[in-house]
C-alpha cells in the first residue's frame, strides 16, 4: 500500500509563512513538525492534514540561519517548535511561549546537533 495522499513540497523561506497562512485559511490541521540535522544545516518538515491528505512543507536552512516560528498562525505548534530548538538547536525566532531550552530540561545540550 503506497500512500498517494502524502506529498512533500519544498518551499524557500520567503514563501514559507504565506504558504502556512494559506493552509490555515483552508482549515488544514497541523500534523507534525520534524527537524533533521543535515550537513551545515537543518531540514525542517511541517506536515498538515486535511481529510485524509497529508502535505509536508520542506524548508532547508543553514545552521545559524533563523527560522520563523509558526506559533502566530498555529498556536499549537509551540510544543514541537520548542522541542526542535532544544534538541537540535534550530534557531527558531519568536516562539510563543518560548521555553528557552527549558522544555525537557536535559543535561546534554542540543544532543541531536552532532551525530554519534
Amino acid at each position, binding site marked *: 500500500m503506497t*500512500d498517494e495522499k*502524502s506529498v512533500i513540497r519544498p518551499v524557500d523561506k520567503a514563501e514559507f509563512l504565506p504558504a502556512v497562512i494559506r493552509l490555515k485559511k483552508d*482549515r488544514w*490541521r497541523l500534523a*507534525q513538525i520534524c527537524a533533521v*540535522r543535515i550537513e551545515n544545516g537543518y531540514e525542517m518538515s511541517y506536515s498538515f492534514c486535511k481529510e485524509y491528505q497529508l502535505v*509536508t512543507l520542506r524548508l532547508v536552512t543553514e545552521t545559524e540561519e533563523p527560522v520563523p516560528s509558526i506559533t502566530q498562525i498555529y498556536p499549537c505548534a509551540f510544543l514541537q517548535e520548542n522541542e526542535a530548538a532544544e534538541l537540535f538547536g534550530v534557531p527558531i525566532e519568536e516562539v510563543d511561549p518560548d521555553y528557552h531550552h527549558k*522544555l525537557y530540561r536535559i543535561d546534554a545540550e542540543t544532543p541531536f546537533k552532532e551525530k554519534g
Partner: protein
Amino acid sequence: MAKRSIIPFGPQHPVLPEPVHLDLVLEDETVVGAIPSIGYIHRGLEKLVEKKDFKQYVYVAERVCGICSCGHGMGYCEAVEQVMEIEVPARARYLRTIWMEMSRVHSHLLWLGLLADAMGFESLFMESWRLREKILDMFDATTGGRIIFSVNCVGGTLKDMDRDMLAGICRAADEIEQEIHPVMETFLRDYSVQSRLKGLGVLKKDDAVLLGAVGPMLRASGEAYDVRMLGYEAYGDLDVEPVTAQDGDCYSRCRVRLYEILQSLRLIRQAAEKIPDGEIAVPVKGNPKGEYFARIEQPRGEAIYYVKGNGTKNLDRFRLRTPTTSNIPPMVELLKGCQLADVPLIILTIDPCISCTER
C-alpha cells in the same frame, strides 16, 4: 478583585500514573492559565537509531510506551517497509491488525478504569480492569507477553496464530462484548457519572481542528477522522467507520471510546474470519534509503512515524509524533476557565500518555 495564585500540579499526583507537571494560574477557584512542563520521562529514544541498526530498533520503538507498544512497533515497521518497498504478506497484515485492535480494547478499558478512579467510582474501576485482563490473557497466550510483546519485525511478524488461538481470541471478544454492557450502561446512564462528565471541558469542532486535536478527542467534537480509513495493514478489507459524537465534552470523549471498544471487538472477529493462510514474513535484504511519513491510528489517535534512511544500516532520523503531543495544546485551552476540582478529569479525558510524548 479575585485573588491570583499559582498551584503546581504534579509531577507525582494520585490521578496520574505518570509524571507530568502543570503550573495552574488560578483566580480564586477558576483556572485562567496552564503552563505544561514535561521532561520527567524524556529518554532520547529517537537518538538511539544512530546506535542500533534498523532491524534492532523495532524493539526500542516498542518500548516508547508500554500501553501503545504494539502500535509503535507496527508504525515504525510500516514506515521502514514503505521506504524499502517491501510487500508484507497478507497473513502478517491481518495478524498485525488483530493485535492492534486488541491493543485498542486494552488501552480503552485501561483508560475507562482510570476515569472511574478519578471520579472516585472504585468498583467501576475494578470492573473495567477485570475485563481488560481477558485481553491480556489472550496476548499472553498468543505472544508470550502481557504488555510489551514484540511481535512486529521489518517484513512481517515474528509469531503466527493457529486456529485455536484465533478461536480463543473470538471467544474472549464475545465474553467482553457481553460483560461490557453493564459497564457501558453505568458510564453512559448513571446519574452521578453524567453529572460529573456532561458539559465539562467542551471543545468545539473548529477549535479541535485548528488546535490539532487527534483521535477520540477530535472525533468526540464531531470531526470524522480516523486514519484506519486509509486502509493500511488489513483495514482496507474490514468495515471501519469513524465513531463520532457531537458535543465535544468529557462525556462525548468517554462515549466515543466505549463505542470504539465494541467496534474493535467486531473488527477482531471479522479479521479472524477473513485471515488468509500463508507466510508471516518476507526476508529483508539491503538497507533503507529514502524517507517516508507513515500514519497509523493508535488508541489515542493519529501517530506519525517519519523515517529517513541513508543506505546504511543505521537510519539518519526517526521521528515519532505521538497523539498526546497533538492533544496537549487543546487540553491547555480546555483548562482555561474550568474549576480547580475539574482539572484532573479534563487532563484524563485526553487520555494522556506522557512516556509517548516525551520519548
